[in-house]
């Protein structure tokens, strides 16, 4: 039986001048990878921030893992995690120290083994004692992903996680996320501006434009609906309003 782990109803965020997100409703099902697609400023980041409770919605409801986010922040956040190319980690600490701090924050049991396992999964074990400042962007991204998996999250929110990765590492990262999903039933909400990546990763896509959902479906369904060749063409059609 498929059930939803995220339920969003009529979610709206108005900033002073713009309506970033306009009455969107959607669900994310357990174990799926949901891709959120849309042009710059479509409201993807704003939506993810609201799902994480760090931006307050103007109106609407968010239920995560069956609980109301507003009233169960702590309980929910203990079971989800987040990574993005726009966050970093304390520069003067080593990779291991940083992960250790977050393991402690999330109260991870057997954190030593857990960290070592994640380090080897992301092929960064040799960087264990390297100061974070010295990491390349791609290496930092993988450490940040390792951080995001420390607490065995049920849901992972990834805002442009591969934005700064080279094609090889990006490919590996995608494969890894899919493997972890297959093994643990992890649910992922994913954004990216890479259309091929979206096609490859997403079980389902939500297409956002100007704060509204204009289409939902599998990548193939969306391509068909908009009579395009591929997702890229559909994206250009929608972004340019043709």
């Amino acid at each position, binding site marked *: 039986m498929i059930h939803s782990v995220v339920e969003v109803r009529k979610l709206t965020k108005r*900033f002073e001048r713009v309506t970033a997100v306009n009455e969107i409703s959607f669900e994310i099902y357990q174990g799926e990878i949901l891709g959120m697609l849309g042009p710059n400023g479509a409201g993807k980041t704003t939506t993810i921030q609201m799902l994480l*409770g760090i931006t*307050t919605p103007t109106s609407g409801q968010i239920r995560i893992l069956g609980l109301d986010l507003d009233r169960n922040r702590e309980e929910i956040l*203990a079971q989800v995690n987040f990574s993005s190319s726009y966050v970093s980690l304390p520069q003067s*600490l080593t990779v291991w120290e940083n992960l250790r701090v977050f393991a402690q924050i999330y109260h991870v049991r057997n954190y030593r083994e857990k960290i070592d396992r994640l380090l080897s999964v992301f092929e960064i074990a040799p960087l264990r004692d390297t100061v974070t400042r010295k990491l390349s962007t791609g290496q930092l991204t993988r450490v940040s992903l390792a951080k995001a998996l420390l607490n065995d999250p049920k849901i992972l929110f990834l805002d442009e996680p591969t934005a700064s990765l080279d094609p090889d590492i990006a490919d590996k990262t995608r494969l890894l996320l899919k493997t972890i999903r297959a093994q643990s039933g992890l649910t992922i909400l994913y954004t990216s501006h890479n259309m091929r990546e979206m096609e490859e990763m997403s079980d389902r896509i939500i297409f956002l434009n100007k704060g509204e959902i204009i289409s939902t479906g599998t990548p193939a369904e969306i391509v068909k609906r908009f009579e395009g060749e591929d997702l890229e063409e559909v994206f250009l059609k929608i972004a340019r309003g043709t």
Partner: protein
Amino acid sequence: MKLHRILALVNRHLMLYKRSPQRMMEIVYWPLLDLMVWGFITVYLARYKEGLPAFVTFFIGALILWDVLFRAQQGICISFLEEIWSRNLLNLFVSPLGTGEFLSATMLVSILKVIGASIMTIGLAYLFYSFNLFMIGLSLVPFVINLVVTGWAIGIFATAIILRYGQEAEVLAWGLAFLFQPVSAVFYPISVLPPSLQVIANGIPAAHVFEGMRAVIETKAFPLHELIWATGLNVIYLASAILFFNYMFRVVKMKGLLVRIGA
């Protein structure tokens, strides 16, 4: 409030010091320079003003105690700025960590810094000027605690503003405590201030601490009423600062600024 989350953050800041000699400098450099300049000034003045043996004690003592307040305040602000500088704020607040835990951790870090810097200053003062802070007596302890709390209140207030207005307000981390210095009666009694400023000074916990310290040195009597005033005002200010921080945190979440700050 969960202790493991508070300790995780404290740990994070301690590791920072272990790994960064520049940060250790902060604990050594300023106390040393301050102490040298002011110490020599007081030694110089004392040479001309005979019959004022308490003079040196006043100045160096005041200096050490002001530094306690300043360090406590800075400890709070810098812990927060470190998270902005390293773009780590989001990582923290997408975890179950709450603002109460965050502030508790910064207060703990701040007190550790104060202890570090104080040991340094007290030691140097003894070495250079044979000034023994403990000569003032153990009655100093409750006053010092009050200075730390005043520092926290100012630090949390400044942090709330930086949270809301971003790095442009960063200067508050270095300067806000000094705004209170003229009315904190650090180096002179409240009575030298013009009447209007005296009113303000009476509302500043630190002013009562420094009046109290002078009373201890001059009369050896324990100035209980100054301590009560300082403590009462501190409770009010610290509580207000925490409420203000929580309020600003809500504003920042409304405005969606947590993503932007330091990103």
